């Protein structure tokens, strides 16, 4: 295993960390407007209150790691998906400030305004993540200089929209289960109800996306065809997904949540294996594709960065676990709550 593969995995792990952690934040946001009372909405926001901001750091660090390890991929994707990315930033900004601002004033219109900002911001962010991944999977028009040769509307292919909706569904399910863990009483019962619906919604979308991928994006299946042993990954994905309703049925909510985390991780592993060794697949000319070699930084930089990651990641995991430990249990509204 060379450094480039290790960095492909590390960047993948950072984005997977983001998807698992901020995924439930975005899911809570996507479900937010379905709640009725102000207290329910406060509970929803406070269930992610202490953690959402740390969760978002996984994205920022993933972006930084991508910049450092695969600058060509960073430059190509973010400049190529310019408008989509600006909308994603818009969504994240509104999500962030809505959480902070909402509780600061009691007026109904004020709270409603930030409720909408929080919820639409979360849905849009989840959708655009899915659209970006759909495009990376399907491939984009890349010229010989690794420059994106399309427009914003070229990105909104039916396949990308499908992966966008699937991502929203996945995060809704993930967020609803997280919500069940963090709440009690009436809201808890509501969330239990939504878990059931969102599981069905997600599984439907998952099946359609899988079929579409096999039919229209055959290169995503190549690695599995060439290395049959890898077939274990889609099997694990399927088992993780199937285990979510199973645990949920037996009211093992925490295990259902862990299964949901595993499902997110497995789906990303599937995605990573599917595109490997490409980072951005060119639909114009396979030779113009950005691979983990043509997009990478120098070996020296990858080595230095690996040292930084080896020192940094245990610290990051330690902070993350301690925060989740300190704020474990059901969410309660106190004077310092949002």
């Amino acid at each position, binding site marked *: 295993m060379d450094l480039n593969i290790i960095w492909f995995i590390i960047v993948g792990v950072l984005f997977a960390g983001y998807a698992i952690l901020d995924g439930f934040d975005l899911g809570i946001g996507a479900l937010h407007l379905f709640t009725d009372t102000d207290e329910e909405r406060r509970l929803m926001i406070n269930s992610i209150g202490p953690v959402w901001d740390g969760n978002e750091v996984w994205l920022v*660090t993933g972006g930084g790691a991508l910049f450092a390890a695969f600058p060509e991929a960073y430059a190509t994707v973010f400049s190529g998906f310019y408008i989509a990315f600006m909308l994603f930033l818009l969504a994240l900004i509104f999500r962030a400030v809505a959480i902070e601002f909402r509780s600061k004033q009691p007026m109904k219109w004020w709270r409603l305004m930030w409720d909408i900002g929080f919820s639409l911001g979360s849905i849009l962010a989840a959708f655009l993540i899915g659209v970006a991944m759909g495009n990376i999977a399907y491939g984009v028009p890349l010229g010989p200089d690794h420059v994106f040769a399309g427009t914003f509307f070229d990105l909104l292919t039916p396949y990308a929209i499908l992966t966008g909706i699937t991502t929203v569904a996945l995060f809704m399910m993930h967020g609803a289960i997280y919500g069940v863990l963090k709440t009690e009483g009436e809201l808890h019962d509501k969330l239990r109800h939504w878990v059931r619906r969102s599981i069905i919604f997600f599984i439907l979308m998952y099946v359609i996306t899988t079929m579409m991928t096999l039919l229209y994006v055959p290169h995503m299946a190549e690695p599995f065809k060439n290395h049959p042993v890898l077939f274990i990954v889609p099997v694990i994905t399927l088992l993780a997904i199937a285990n979510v309703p199973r645990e949920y049925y037996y009211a093992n909510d925490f295990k259902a949540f862990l299964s949901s985390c595993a499902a997110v991780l497995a789906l990303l592993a599937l995605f990573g294996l599917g595109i490997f060794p490409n980072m951005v697949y060119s639909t114009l000319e396979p030779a113009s594709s950005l691979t983990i070699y043509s997009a990478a930084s*120098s070996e020296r930089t990858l080595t230095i960065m690996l040292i*930084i990651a080896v020192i940094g990641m245990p610290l990051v995991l330690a902070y993350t676990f301690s925060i989740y430990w300190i704020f474990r249990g059901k969410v309660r509204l106190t004077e310092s709550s949002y």
Partner: protein
Amino acid sequence: MDVLFLSRLQFAFTIGFHYIYPPLSIGIGVILVLVEGMYLKTNDELYERMAKFWVKIFGLTFAMGVATGIVMEFEFGTNWAAYSRFVGDVFGSALAAEGIFAFFLESGFLAILLFGWDKVSKKMHFFATLMVAFGAHFSAVWITVANSWQQTPAGYHVVGNALRARAEITDFWAMVFNPSSMERLSHVLMGAWQAGAWLVISVSAYYLLRKQHLKFAKQSIKIGLIVAIIASIMQLVTGDISAKGVSKHQPAKMAAAEGHFDRSAPASMYLFGWVNEEKQEVQFGIGIPGMLSWLIYGDASKPVTGLNAFPEKDRPPVNIVFQSYHLMIAIGTGLILLALLGSFFWWKGTLFEHRWLLWIFVFAVLGPQIANQVGWITAEVGRQPWIVYGLMRTSDALSEAVQANAVIASLIMFTFIYILLFAVFIYLLDNKIRHGPEVEAETEETHIA
């Protein structure tokens, strides 16, 4: 309008807006460490109320910093793809290190700071505050290192040629400790401490004028003044070192900052003025002849490299750099005098009696904010036309795939959102300040006062 101008405008606008908040977080972070440290030591509930109040303000500025900061992480890729391809190997490492070492630390412990009052012990809360303050300082370290590498690149070599050329790290520590990074970092941090200190002083002065929360305000203003006096005097030192470094490594920037054109002659230092670029002279200004030479070399007759030593295409815009530089110095000097004046009256025991001074304090909060902004304008515009000094021109750094209309769209979007956010931020800040710290035992104390 061309993509270059639009992208520069967007970057300037988004980074300028972002930079309102991180200095406040760093500066208030220092104040919080002091206040919570005092609480731990004395067990006086006054300090607890102070901590709780300033934590709320901190939470607000931090949220704005996060929301506007995430834009910055990705804007290199969206608008400056050619730059990102060229420097990713070097510059990307610093950004990634910032994420791993600073942001996780900051955001993790922030949760305890904001919501952990009842969940953890006092000591643990203090520890969390300390870690958040460290995290905020670390993020300043890495981002200033990255920017300083753009000013004085070191520890790299350029590989490949023409379009395929890129900078690669040869020596990581030489990159981190490039010639300007430590002096610029200390200058940035002292600017941030002042931003936090003057916010605290300003709010406290406001309470004193309104005769509200007197005990709270008196103690806060003192802590603010201590930080302000240390930081503003240190700023003089770091500013001096930075200026010497700039004249050595980026002489065109220094020459533009003082409107010095002569290829090689003793240079004056101006208090103010207007640079006439056609006539190559500073008009309507007051300057101290030889002062710049003296400050740099300790000898008023030593020649300083002027703008004419550089071909026209390698010179930065002169007047913008001159004006922002002089505004920064004027405000910096003013803040030193103000901090000294405050300390003098504190020593005399009459600090709270001079209403005129308190009124100046209320508005002084703008001082560090403006000085920080114009200081960065000096640094960044003064580096032009280079994006990496001497290595890559700003005009070569754009995203190949991004058209002008896309940048216009995003610029309009950012303008609209940021104006909205700023209005809401000011409104909520004002609200929190008017609401004030939690009132306990304060009522009775107001009567005594």
